């Protein structure tokens, strides 16, 4: 059986994506695998409390190491690098790792073979048991590159487990934005669920996310969170949902008790009641109608 994969995204950050995902995890308890691919700001584990039984190291790229005994300071590497990641200084050649993209050009052009490309740990990922079922999650080290590759790695792992253990469904907490990690999270997904809010920026960001989903040919369903923030923007978003032929899963009003639950590191299931149950039912219906 091929598992279905629901990826929850938002375009704009802070719309309540992870709160909603945690409540969906509770409603899909034991019936799905869970995965957090917001690898540079992961939060789902704070509500699901996994035991993190298995941990893995992630190294996606290689960076230069310069042997100062072999280097003759010719500067060929400095001239080749298009990312300004290698600098010639008084005491030798140094590489600026946060600028390096790991292309290996410096090592190729070095006439003295003084540069080797070595991989190193860029992040970690874990598989943990929670009371709701297994959770895969990850963390990229601060300031690192290659978040898209780590997202892809996590998705592969969770998918393999789902196939092996016959889970029909995977719920993924996705990254914000529309670039590398979002593309990596959405490519090949069964359904994208956008959690948005009725604000000028919420609508603007949702439209860009919608365009990304259609270019990746992933169907989109929308949850309107903090729905009472603005009547005008609420109506505008509802119009766009109709225009773009997206599925509408439901609205949730702003409730401070959601923040209180999160602050006690608890899933805000009661605070999202009864709307979240309606959303769950609608989502279930859409998932069941998607043929694999």
């Amino acid at each position: 059986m091929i598992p279905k994969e629901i990826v929850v995204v938002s375009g704009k950050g802070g719309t309540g994506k992870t709160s909603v995902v945690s409540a969906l995890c509770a409603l899909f308890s034991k019936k799905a695998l869970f995965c957090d691919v917001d690898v540079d700001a992961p939060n789902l584990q704070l509500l699901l409390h996994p035991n993190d039984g298995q941990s893995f190291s992630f190294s996606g790229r290689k960076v230069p190491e310069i042997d100062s005994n072999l280097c003759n300071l010719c500067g060929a590497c400095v001239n080749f690098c298009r990312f300004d990641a290698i600098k010639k200084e008084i005491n030798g050649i140094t590489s600026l790792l946060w600028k390096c993209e790991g292309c290996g050009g410096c090592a190729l052009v070095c006439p003295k073979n003084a540069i080797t490309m070595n991989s190193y740990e860029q992040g970690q990922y874990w598989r943990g048991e929670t009371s709701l079922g297994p959770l895969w999650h990850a963390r990229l080290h601060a300031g690192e590159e290659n978040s898209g590759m780590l997202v892809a790695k996590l998705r592969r792992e969770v998918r393999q487990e789902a196939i092996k253990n016959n889970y029909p469904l995977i719920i993924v907490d996705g990254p914000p934005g529309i670039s590398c990690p979002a593309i990596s999270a959405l490519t090949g997904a069964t359904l994208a669920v956008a959690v948005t809010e009725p604000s000028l920026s919420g609508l603007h960001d949702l439209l860009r996310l919608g365009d990304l989903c259609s270019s990746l040919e992933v169907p989109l369903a929308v949850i309107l969170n903090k729905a009472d923030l603005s009547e005008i923007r609420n109506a505008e978003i509802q119009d766009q949902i109709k225009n773009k032929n997206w599925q509408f899963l439901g609205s949730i009003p702003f409730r401070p008790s959601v923040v209180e639950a999160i602050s006690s590191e608890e899933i805000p299931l009661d605070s999202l009641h009864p709307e979240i149950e309606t959303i769950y039912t609608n989502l279930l219906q859409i998932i069941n109608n998607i043929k694999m």
Partner: protein
Amino acid sequence: MFRLTVVSGKGGTGKTCVASSLASALQEGTIIDLDVDEPDLGLVLNIQNPEKESIYKVIPKIDIQRCIGCGICADNCAFGALNQFGMNPPLVNEKLCHGCGVCEYVCPQKAIKESQIKIGDLNIKHTKNWWFIEGRLTIGEPNPVPVIHAALEKANSLPFPQIVDGPPGTACPMVAAVEQSHFVVLVTEPTPFGLSDLALAAETVQELRIPAAVVINRSDLGNKEETEAFCKKINIPILACLPFSKKVAHAYAEGIAPFCVDQRWQEATYTILGHVKEVLS
């Protein structure tokens, strides 16, 4: 004169609220939106009809007359952007290409030349008080970093002081935006999510050795004491605590900067500007 960048780690904590408020207080300089995935600052500052400049990235163009299908370029591409099947010329995946130039360098046939594709836009506007620049990534393009660099290069020739609305997260786009700044304001919220992401963002900023300060937004929702204790531990000052305000939330939903509707936000904005001037003098 300074370039101040506002970041948050976690999205939706009020980064653009702070950046738009700083912009509203400034009489001169340049305001820059580097959240190029989802640029929203121009909406709040009501920027109309900006001038557009296209941003390009370098990609390889294969001369199929010269290519002998040896596959050396594909073997050396660190990004998997060149794929070689049989003896055919390699296929170029433009989206995965970082434009490093390695393929052109290693090709024994000199069959690879540089070409360009558009990956985004710079939107530029000169308003009554300041210049506005927005980087906007083309939808479907994975790498925001070249768009961030292009916007900053443009900004270097424009007046200071400069206020930057940075990208969320703590990965390469955030580093690209922050590393060319003189000061960083970290906007957070006192929830476990806010604190966890603040810790990652602060670590990145401290590694880059850029002076920073914290603003706690919606400071009455959650547990402010934990955030205060954390800031004390890592020795980053807290410049303002702004309680949740329905008025601010509703105004922001309509695209109005908090500075324009709330006195506490005005005071916080001037505190930030005063602090930055003092630290950098």
